[in-house]
């Protein structure tokens, strides 16, 4: 929409345009702020986060295998966010044609931004989804770093699946996986 604005409505002076753009961006999806109390939570205090705030593994059938988030009291909100992001994941998967499905890149990129967070997605070939939510104030994280986080996550997940005592479809309770996830997440300061 921004691009359209830019090209087709050269109505404002550059200054007013950038201002508008700022506002647009802010109001872009102002859900989280306006509805955070839905979930009966205030905004969490911003901390100097470097990493993800929520990491989720979703089964092929779209139920959660693993969800971890910091801070813990925002859990419900993250559940909603992750669940909603599945729509986008499905959209992105179905956008790739059937024939191309094999060569599809696992990393889906930014699924959607909310006011507070950026949601990234990754889908394995077995349709297991990984979702990483990053604080949007966190500008230090580049796409490449997110990508490598997903790769790490995927490797650890593969290890979990290789465990003969793990029953596919069960929630993940592996300590190794947990520690990998913890390493990727910011501890609430």
């Amino acid at each position, binding site marked *: 929409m921004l691009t359209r*604005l830019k090209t087709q409505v050269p109505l404002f*002076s550059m200054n*007013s345009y950038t201002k508008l753009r700022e506002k647009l961006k802010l*109001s872009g999806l102002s*859900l989280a702020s306006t*509805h955070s109390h839905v979930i009966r939570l205030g905004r969490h205090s911003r901390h100097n986060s470097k990493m993800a705030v929520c990491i989720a593994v979703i*089964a092929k059938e779209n139920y959660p295998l693993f969800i971890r988030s910091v801070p813990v009291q925002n*859990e419900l909100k993250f559940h909603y966010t992750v*669940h909603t992001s599945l729509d986008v994941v499905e959209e992105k998967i179905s956008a790739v044609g059937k024939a191309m499905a094999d060569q599809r890149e696992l990393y889906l990129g930014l699924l959607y931004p909310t006011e507070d967070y950026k949601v990234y997605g990754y889908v394995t070939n077995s349709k297991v989804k990984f979702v990483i939510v990053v604080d949007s104030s966190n500008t230090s994280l580049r796409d490449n770093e997110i990508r490598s986080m997903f790769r790490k996550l995927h490797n650890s997940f593969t290890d979990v699946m290789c465990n003969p005592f793990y029953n596919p479809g069960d929630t993940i309770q592996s300590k190794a996986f947990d520690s990998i996830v913890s390493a990727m997440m910011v501890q609430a300061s």
Partner: protein
Amino acid sequence: MAQCVQSVQEFIQDSFVPMVAVLCSEDAEKVTRKNNLNFSELLRPFCRLTSEGHMRDPSNQLQVVKNLRISVNNVVTRPSVPSSGVPGHAHRRLLSEVVLTCQPAEGGVANVITAGDYDLNISATTPWFEAYRESFLQSMPASDHEFLNHYLACLLVVSSSEAVPVEKFLKLSQEQHRIQHSGEYTNPKWFIPNTLKYYVLLHDMSQGDEQRADSVYEDMKQRYGAQGCYLLKVNSRTAAAGADEQIPDPWSQYLHKSSLQSQVQLGLAPSYGVLVNSLDNTHPLQLDTPSDTPGSLDALRAVAVETKPPPLTTGVAAATSHGACLTLNDHDRIRLFIQEFTFRGLLPHIEKNIRQLNDQLVSRKGLSRSLFSATKKWFGGGKVPEKSIAELKNTSGLLYPPEAPELQIRKMADLCFLVQLYDLAYSCYHTAKKDFLSDQAMLYAAGALEMAAVSAFLQVGAPRPYPAHYMDTAIQTYRDVSKNMVLAERCALLSAEVLKSQAKYSDAATLLIKMTSEDSDLRSALLLEQAAHCFINMRNPMVRKFAFHMILAGHRFSKAGQKRHALRCYCQAMQVYKGKGWSLAEDHINFTIGRQSFTLRQPENAVTAFRHILTNDSQQTSTQQGAFLREYLYVYKNVTGACEVALPQLPLPCINSSATRVYFGHERRLAEGEKQAATHVSLDQEFDRDLAAMWQDLEEQVVAAAKRGVVPATFQSTQCCLNSQTDNLRFPLAVVEEPIIVEVVFRNPLKVPLVLSDLSLLWKFTLKDFNRPQTQEDSVGDAVPISNEKEASVPRVRKDDVIATEVISEFYLSPEETKLARLKLLPHQTGQLNILGLVYNLASTSSTGDTTINSPSAAEGTSVRGRQDLEIQGPRLNQTKEEKTSVSHGPDRRLDPTITPPMPLLEVFFLQFPTALLCGEIRKAYVEFCNMSRVTLCGLRVASTHPDFFTFGSSSLATPLTPLSPTSFENCSAYKTLATPPGATPGSVAAVTLVSEGDFGSGTGLRGGVSGAGTGGKGITEIPLGEGTLKPGESTQLPMWLRGPDQEGVHEIHFLFYYESAEKGGKISHRVLRHTVFICASRSLSVRATACRSNTLPEEEEEERNGSMLVFVDVENINSSEAGVREFHIAQVSSSSKQWRLHKCINPAEDKDCKLTSRERGKLCFRATRCKPLQAFPFSKSGVSSLQIITSTTPCADFFFRRCQPLESLRPPVAMETQGRHSRSQGVGHGGGDKDIAGVVRKCNEVDLDIIILWKAFVVEDNKQVILEGQLHVALQTIDKEACSLTPKEEAQEMVLLKFKPELPPPMTRPSMEQLSHLIKTNLQYPESYSHPFNQKSLCMVPVTLTLSNCSLAQVDVIIDLRHKTTSPESLEVHGSFTWLGQTQFKMQLGAQEVMRVQLRACFLHAGVYNLGTPRVFAKLADQGAMCETSQQTATPALIIIINST
């Protein structure tokens, strides 16, 4: 965005319609008042024109105006909405009311949307949104930057009843002019300075003079022209005349909104309650909302209720009488009037104005406008950016003067738009937009952009694509620059609708979501809901986004006080989250639904929703769960408070129904002091299938014994404790006045503790008298079930006279705990009982302080009463094919006991019952039998897995059954003793007593006279009660002797006491009592005995003529606990046999007692002689001590006989048969001997001698010496074969082997030579030395008697050959030779055990030592055809000394 009733085009057209003002004289107002309407209201239903109109555009093209609608309103001079763009409070309230009253119909059609694996049930339409939108657009305030809702014309209405109507018209006209031009009023706003005035003469047909009206109208026509006035005739009907006539009421659907609107706008609403009420009563959907729930909706509604009565009546009256004086003709007249006004008056007026404006613009465009812009470009162009920042700040304040040329374009555009000249409108808007933008008049620009976009969309044939970005920009500008949310919202609504029509759902959703803000919850809610609908309507439906936005919408609805809508949103969202594993979200939604439902007085739904949160294994924290629970309880309490009828089901705690156990009978008393009660069955025991089978087997045995060997076909083993593994197909039997204990397994799934109080069972009971003969009437008459369900709702009021129900006052369940509760019922009447479930108060503990619920009464201590049913599914049926292929379950009658008449109830106590014994130790204990019931008990029997473990003694002998006193027992020996005569040497006395086996009642011989038929009555003992019965309340103590098992180790010994009622014919034939003891047996002595044939000749006595034996008894102390047992004394050795008796002890040592300390061994030797076969068992004693123990009396003999049984019973039938043939069967003799040489042969080697070793052990216990006594048995069966007191282990193996080959005959092996050589026993009798005077007589003749005795029971042919000579030279040297004289070979036959003496003569030639043992004896069984004679054992050298006497 949901589907709408109107199409987009219709919607937009209706949003912008020409506005017409009304100025009414008072008289005219009176005329319309008759219909309860004012003039504008009167016209409203007819404002849509059904016919087409025509007009010419500026280029003189004829244009068709279709489906035009006009809006007629009274002139209101007060501003409705502050121009700031923030809607006022009243306005908000109006919108809120509109939405509130528009609820989805109860049974509304919902369509099912399938997306992926979701099937969603969503109503496609959202009428509340449309209603909101309509109200919103209608109540848009008129603003200066646009003219769309400025008044175009004014209707001046005067009644014909006016004295001088023309004057009045003049007055009104002046009034209108004043309003528009005096500048006193900013409101209403007028489109064009010279507003069209249309003169309407209103004539009341029922009152006025019609002709006068016509004449006035003629006058008017001349004055104002035929197209500028109208005569409207109404009220043709007198109110009284056609009251019954049904006239459609087209006003009702318009009026509620407008009345509301006008009242709100005018600020007339005196009391909001009245308003709401009239609204309620006029609204068609009111029928759907339950009006009988007072205070149901919210505070608003509550106010309404308070002020209900007076406004109700007026409201109803007002509602019913709309248009009461109007006939259908009048309706047509009004319609015609509107049409006339529009086509003759309004449209030409507009046409004229458009033309004027167009001319103006065209003329100006040429020079001033272009020049102006050109100069601007040239001179100020470079400076625009810098300037604009400053300008932007106050753009909202920038106002064009009304006559500004920019506004003229806009005005023209609006006019064109209103009359559907969209092409023209677009180009005008476009031009205006450019102008405004270049002037930085942002608000104006936005308005122009918006309308340009709309008119572009509405253009027929769509020459250009819809410019969505115009809209976006307009919205941004409205909102951010002008801060006018109302306009922004209008713009967004229009844009979203357009986008939706173009299937750009994603864009529409984004647009709608962007419009949500904190300032209006209602708007946000509605828009979010629409956005959600957009997501679901996408080509690839985004279900989860839909759900999420629904939740957001629901939240906003609830904030806006629209609880019903909120609940609906949450419910729709729930469909997506339900059962997909997103438990946290699911819980949140359920919780919210629960709360909303509760506030909406839908407690059932609330309870269901809360139940979901509580029963699922939620991942919530404990505080959260605690809050959920409290809220649930609170809601629940309110539900139950409302309806008292039936107790509702509670979801908590979870009950594991199938694990329910039912126990019949009293709870077992534990050991009290020395008394030790029978263990019986208790709920504390785990069910063990093997044990149960064992008990059942025992019971079957004892029943068979009691029923004379036949187990009745209806036999069913008594089950005292029913659980999931027992057979629950039949109704269990319980006895009246005996408790029924139900054990229920509770599980608390939550992380917070639960407290149940006043927990008791729910039951249903049908009285039945089992003593009376059951007739049909009886069963019908009695079949009125009594239940405690009613009473249970009030704790502690119960029907105790029928069945006493025990109540557990408090039952605490820790977080995530599984706990058992035992609940008792005590039936007082006979009948059929059904245990239905449980009833209890559920409460949470007040551990966590923070309560999330708003209501203060929901604080701690809330407890609700409810029930849970116990439904037990029976086992799955798997018999027939049908059952196998389908899943069907059998019945489970665990909880449906039949209460039968009283039965005796036995209690058994054991006194001084040991837990540890030495192997073979004899201990005396006491048993107490108690009849606890009111019915006499009889037929007491006991069955046991170890019948050899105990005995109650025999009654036939004069044994004093009553013990002296159990306490003085310790010093008393269990045995009866008899002092030996002082003179007699110990060990030499052998007393003989004859005892019959039957006396000891050992198994087969039952005292009832039934001779031991051996049908399973092996381990059953009848218990000798006083008179065979036990009266109610009576108790008897009996002595009981116990003997330590022969095997060391821990033995589990089961007793099954069987008893019957003295009154026969009850439903229960018998009852049983179980007891299990554990006895630890430790090693005592090991006794090995061997019997050897002695070669000595029998004594002279006749009965002992047939040989004797030597019995060696080898006793070893194998006790390993050196600390406890100091030494063993062999007190006495007794024997029991039908053929043998033990004689005196040949003991080399002189000791009186044989003492054995640890690991010592001793050997005793006895001589046994054969005696006449006797029917009874003689006990011969050969004591080692001075005190003789009478072995033939109670404990000793009992145990001796009991010992025999297991051996036999353990043997398989084949073994029994073979054994039976050669043991004890005296009379059989040699009848069947011909077939079985081996048997016969073996028989002669057989000794059937049982040895009883009585011992004493000196044990130090607690620094006190205790003497323990015991007895060991050794059964000697074969000569020279060692027998041991410890049963050999290989016996079991032998059993198995025989079992595997039952068809194999007993091995017919030829008896070995060695065995055969034992047939005949020879003995030579001769003088030891013989003096013979060889010098006198050279030949010395010595008479020798050869005694032959047949050891076997068969006839034996014997050949004695004397001819044989020792050929070896050595023997010759040693012995010298002699010859036998006379007959040297004999052939004879010996009968069974016959002794024969043969007189021989030996002839010696010299003095010397000779061996007489030369005769060779050959023997063969007489009837054996083949000669298989064997030489009999050579006798030991029989030396004779021949002395030469001189």
